[in-house]
């Protein structure tokens, strides 16, 4: 059976939001992510014969996308390492200054994870793949995925530096509001 044209186009269109979400989470950059998605769609269309019908089209597309991303990474490894060194320096002064988990901090920390750990975390923690599916997408053992997810979690926790109870609950931002309100409403 040939699922080219109509049905394939519809199937691919339907999976684009999912693919983009994976790509952005993986590379942390919307423009680069959309280039990855474009390349993935082209490769998928041109190599459809290597897709086994009846298997998971989404997993197949994710595999193409991550392979494209990682070979891309290998090509520009030096550049990426330089950039991540700078990002690490920026991050180091950041978390201590505020008592809560800020989305920007989270994004930055996510981008600082080793790519293989970030991939595992995103596949399992956000894209909803089982460990087995994630392992097949990444081309590694299930145990490897599990340990990457664990290391990713540990590293994020360390990077975001939220290790003390004080940083939870009624925190410094509440205190700041209280302080501000107290200052602002002082009667003459």
């Amino acid at each position: 059976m040939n699922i080219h044209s109509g049905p394939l186009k519809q199937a691919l269109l339907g999976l684009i939001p999912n693919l983009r979400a994976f790509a952005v989470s993986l590379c942390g950059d919307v423009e680069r992510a959309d280039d990855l998605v474009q390349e993935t769609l082209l490769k998928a269309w041109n190599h459809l014969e290597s897709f086994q019908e009846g298997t998971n089209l989404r997993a197949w597309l994710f595999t193409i996308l991550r392979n494209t991303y990682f070979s891309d990474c290998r090509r520009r490894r030096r550049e990426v390492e330089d950039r991540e060194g700078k990002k690490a320096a920026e991050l180091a002064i950041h978390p201590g200054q505020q008592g809560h988990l800020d989305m920007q901090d989270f994004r930055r920390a996510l981008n600082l994870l080793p790519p293989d750990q970030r991939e595992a975390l995103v596949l399992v923690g956000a894209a909803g793949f089982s460990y087995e599916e994630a392992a097949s997408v990444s081309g590694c053992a299930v145990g490897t995925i599990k340990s990457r997810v664990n290391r990713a979690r540990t590293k994020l926790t360390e990077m975001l530096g939220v290790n003390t109870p004080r940083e939870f609950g009624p925190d410094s931002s509440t205190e700041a509001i209280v302080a501000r309100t107290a200052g602002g409403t002082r009667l003459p």
Partner: protein
Amino acid sequence: MNGKNGFTGPSGAGEAQMKGESGGGRRVRQPAGKRPGGCAEADVEMETRPDMQRAPRHDSQATGMIDRSLQAQLGRQLRAIFEGIEEEPVPERFVKLLEALEAREKQR
């Protein structure tokens, strides 16, 4: 999303493993307290040793709670990023690309 969560899921296993290890550690260390001494000395050992090991255990329990709460928070943020992008409309370039591929296919 199907509720699978890379944060809370493996965290349980990790903690069980940690607890298992520390429990094992205590069991291993107790026999090490056997000395050529009387019962009194052994009793003192029983009193002090668990205490010395309880302190770090409390810490790790507290850390475990913080970790769970933090990891739930991290998991929510990860999914928020992912779902935020999923909700964006499909960029026009992809619609055009697929139309072009389809048109090319039909010409063959």
